[in-house]
């Protein structure tokens, strides 16, 4: 260890001076690019939001003036609020089912050893690697073969299926990071297996379970392809848009989407701010 380290720690004048202007430029280039890219990502959102205030007539393509009316009379658009209600119903039920089933699987996968473990992992991984159109067509083919009437129940069954995989992945990570000594401490401190689960394991897994539930709901709410194959005559919000796209989207659809967007963003921002506030408080106390 003689000459080379000295050279890097003590650069020659030309090496120190030359890259300066270039580096300053490169240092700005990345932030500028990222800002532009983020703006690009937001363009369609802004467009949707702006056109929810368009005083449109039949179609919502050309700008015809500003109005609040569409926000106030959103349910006047035939079928829109019904489709939205269906989406909420499907989302809630599918999320509840998938979260319960998926959490149980995640705990079993991390905590127990059993035969066919890898086949079970594959069974849970495969739906995520399967295009939605195949999942949708497969279920539709099965319902067709069984003569099942397609409707809201078949949509819920379909959504629960693809949500389970995502719940398992999300909760599994949380279970794996849970220190087994905590549950052992619970048993050591006279907690019966049920008490240990409900007082220690479950509360510690809760953030992961909630994240999985939110993700499930988001996936279900925005799903179109699988729904399209299995909904029969029932409309969900995305399906409403798909059908309306052929003849022109009513501005009321923009209203619903914008409202959902605002609520979702608010939830995310509030949780982020409260988390960073909690971390600051912890840091101060520590």
């Amino acid at each position, binding site marked *: 260890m003689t000459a080379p*380290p000295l050279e*890097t720690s003590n650069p020659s004048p030309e090496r120190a001076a030359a890259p300066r202007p270039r580096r300053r430029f490169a240092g700005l280039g*990345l*932030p500028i*690019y*990222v800002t532009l890219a*983020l703006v*690009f990502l*937001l363009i*369609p*959102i802004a467009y*949707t939001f702006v056109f929810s205030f368009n005083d449109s007539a039949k179609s919502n393509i050309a700008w015809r003036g500003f109005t609040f009316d569409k926000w106030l009379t959103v349910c006047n658009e035939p079928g829109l609020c019904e489709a939205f209600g269906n989406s909420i119903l499907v989302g809630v039920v599918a999320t509840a089912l998938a979260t319960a089933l998926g959490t*149980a*699987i995640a705990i*079993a996968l991390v905590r*127990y*050893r*059993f035969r066919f473990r890898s086949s*079970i992992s594959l*069974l849970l*991984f495969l739906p995520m*690697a*399967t*295009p*939605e*159109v*195949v999942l949708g*067509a*497969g279920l539709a*083919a*099965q319902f*067709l*073969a069984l003569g099942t009437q397609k409707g809201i129940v078949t949509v819920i*069954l379909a959504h*629960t*299926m693809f949500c*389970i995989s*995502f719940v398992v*992945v*999300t909760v599994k*990570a949380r279970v*794996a*990071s849970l220190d*087994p000594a905590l549950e052992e401490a619970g048993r050591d401190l006279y907690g019966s297996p049920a008490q240990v689960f409900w007082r220690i394991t479950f509360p510690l897994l809760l953030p992961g379970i909630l994240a999985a539930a939110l993700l499930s709901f*988001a996936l279900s709410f925005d799903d*179109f*392809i699988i729904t*399209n194959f299995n909904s029969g005559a029932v409309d969900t919000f*995305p399906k409403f*848009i798909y059908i309306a*796209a052929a003849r022109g*989207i009513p501005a009321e659809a923009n209203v619903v*989407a*914008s409202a*959902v*967007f605002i609520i*979702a963003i608010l939830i*995310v921002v509030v949780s*982020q701010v409260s988390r*960073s506030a909690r971390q600051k408080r912890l840091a101060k106390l520590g």
Partner: protein
Amino acid sequence: MAFAAFASSDAAVTKPPRRKSTIALVLLLPGILYMVLFFLTPLISLVITSFQAELPGGDIGEYVPALQWQNYVDSASEYLPHILRAFGYALVATVFALIVSYPIAYYIGVKARRWPLLQSMMLTLVIAPFFISFLLRTLAWKQILSDESPVVQALKAVAILPADGHLTGTPFAVIFGLTYNFIPFMTLPLYTTLERLDTRFLEAGSDLYANPATTFLKVTVPLSMPGIISGTLLTFIPAAGDYINASRDFLGSSKTAMLGNAIEANFLTLQNYPVAAALSIILMAVILILVGVYVRRSGTEDLL
């Protein structure tokens, strides 16, 4: 984040699990049974359907069980352009999405570490498109890229686009839409690996006489390989099966129809179930083969 699904590995599970398996059975059985009933058997019924033959003298949509391999030959030859477009568009969109997303993920995950609030805000902006309907986002692009839009007018004015040119209904628009829609799927897994990247490796790289570009190619990129793999898979798989962007009501036209459009039309409109099923099996098989080769080539089998 579920988008790290492909990056999560069993290696994180430390203790060898060992205990009575009755509880495991109770925990597993309902969910596994559900997946068997609503994932595995549908795939099997898809396979069965793909071999069905028309009922002689039957109505439209009436089929009988058979072992008609011809269905595969017929549908593959009839829809070869759709198959090629599906994988071609998906491939190009995946490459574009990677190029666009990597700098974003790098900036948020590495450069913005000093400002946690900025980091989480930028991350929120990346996932913001998830909170607004996929279909409406695509329709918004359709309007923005429509023939009457200022964008197209401007492009025509500077003669990038010929006077009679269009953006919507072209392969460009479809690939553009796919790229746009899957950028968050690409960015998030990249961010997840880059955020954990130890910057001391980069310092070690430059200490060992690598210039920034060499450090990036020889240190940063290999270390973010798990993110690149999960991101590309999370983009390529759904993009190959997508039929919204390519649909004529959205960014495409009949000339841009992808395999997904063919499956949808055959299943839901033409009620030609065997063809739709055969095309689905072809799509699934090609994806599984491609993913298998890709994952094996990149030496990250443990990711699955």
